[in-house]
């Protein structure tokens, strides 16, 4: 819960509520990837992540 509260405050402070749809789609895709792949490997290039 505290995570969601902080994330909400972050989006309010940065005025980034327009990112919510993108975030939801990412969560959907990302969630599927997590469920189907089982492992997450960081790309080898510069750690943009």
């Amino acid at each position, binding site marked *: 819960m505290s995570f969601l509260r902080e994330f909400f405050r972050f989006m309010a402070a940065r005025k980034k509520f327009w*990112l919510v749809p993108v975030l939801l789609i990412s969560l959907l895709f990302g969630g599927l990837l997590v469920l189907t792949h089982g492992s997450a490997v960081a790309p*080898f290039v510069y750690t943009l992540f």
Partner: protein
Amino acid sequence: MRVLGISGLYHDSAAALVVDGVIAAAAQEERFTRRKHDADFPAKAVDYCLSVAGCGLDELDAVVFYDKPFVKFERLLETYLAVAPRGFNSFRMAMPLWLREKLFQKSILGKELRKIAPGFDVEKLLFTEHHLSHAASAFYPSPFDDAAVLTMDGVGEWATMTLAIGSGKDLKIHKELHFPHSLGLLYSAVTYYTGFKVNSGEYKVMGLAPYGEPRFAALMLDKLIDLKPDGSFHLDQSYFNYASGLTMTNERFAALFGQSVRQPEQLLTQFHMDMAASVQAVTEEIVLRLARSVRAETGQKNLCLAGGVALNCVANGKLLRENVFDNIWIQPAAGDAGGALGAALAGYHLYAGHERPPRSGNGDAMQGSYLGPSFSQAEIEAELTAAGARFETLDDAALIETTAQALADGKAVGWMQGRMEFGPRALGSRSILGDPRSPQMQKTLNLKVKYRESFRPFAPSVLREDVADWFEIDEDSPYMLLVADVQKGLRREMSEAEKALFGIDKLNVPRSTIPAVTHVDYSARIQTVHADTNPRYHALISRFKALTGCPVVVNTSFNVRGEPIVCSASDAFRCFMGSEIELLVVGNSVLRKEEQDPGLKLDYKESFELD
């Protein structure tokens, strides 16, 4: 007030502790875990910092993490949105990682901190911006009351380059350049293109540059970069792939320069050297333009630098010679590890609002960057005995005499004294030393001690009072972050046949009276040694000078290729037994290779992954 700074979870984890504005301790996690560029939570480095302060984690006033994960996530989402659908592969890799852990960094950090102290209050955990951490690490320890602060690296949250102004305890970012336009990533792109590992091979590109001609610099400036007069720029993303893919450059980049990406096992050719020279020339041009515009815009006389690009000592040397600023100070831990120190300093001065403590003399507050662990003579002897080492313990004068004599006899000496350095350079506390006058020293150290072939020669440590007699510089360079040429009178001109040599063969031709530290363009990466910050090292070089007339020694980090620099006496002993270092000096203990038990010899060469 006690503030702990933490960097990591991406690469180069570190911790730093500031007590009442004074830097009490700082160390990288890799030195303790023995894993190069260790990115895990820096538990051991935190432990070490707490041991220096003599307190528990729950007694600290604040713990500050060096960047803001939510803002980074925002950049990722917006970038994927901007390049969609091209970035799907990258998205596919990144999202699970973020949704599982990186987005929850606060709770992960909280959990790790509670493992150290179950009563730790998570409300004390603060986050500062990545480039503000760099800027704080550059400004607060600098010897200046007022300064312009330039930070440049690959990318933090959004910023890749910032201009801040520091005055007293205040530090404010005035301008930022945002991702994907990044000088660090441009350099990394060429690092990738020339077949080196991104994030660690950049220094190889810098070392390769003097062998080449910058014949592609104009093409880079014409096609890749829209460089403005003030040094800001725009990178044409149609040549790069780092924003949307899993490589740094794309086929269009390869087509522009006429060759495909070099694979690590492929031979280096003049083409790659010319690419290195070109990106180096472009980097220097950008840094110079930035510096000039910052000077004109802010009127500041002093400049502080940090961020990975500030480790480009060739560009730093050029900046110094151009006299754009009256004084320049560069944070020795300019990379992300230094972010831990900056985060702690930002917490102390910007969050808590405390004034900077008074400085003694004109020096900086880094204490020579000797901020890591040290060991008492009793601890050293106990560790060496447990490891099965045979050693004798000498008094200070005999220790200096024995070591200086061994150097004068051409021996490779492992030298571990006092507090370990913070930052990527060994500065005479965890160093392998040699005689720079010896034409064989470079080859011996490279092949028998470090197990590598390097394009760069070794760096010289020179007594501060003698630096101007040997090199074309008369400034302090205690952190090996400035490059200057060897004095003309000491140089040896190359014959036509020697000039025609290629690559490493060219480097192996002696080109001065101190060939082991002279690059093919007569430059050297200089460390000035000061009696006040490292008296024992200063005494050693002074004695070497008395024996040989030369106030310079070869100084390379105490490790083999791919290994983190040694931290403890047992690390030093292992490296000694796994390489052909002939004499090891740890504290007041002296170990001779021929006296050691041959059964303790290690096959060390293959122990570490190449960087």
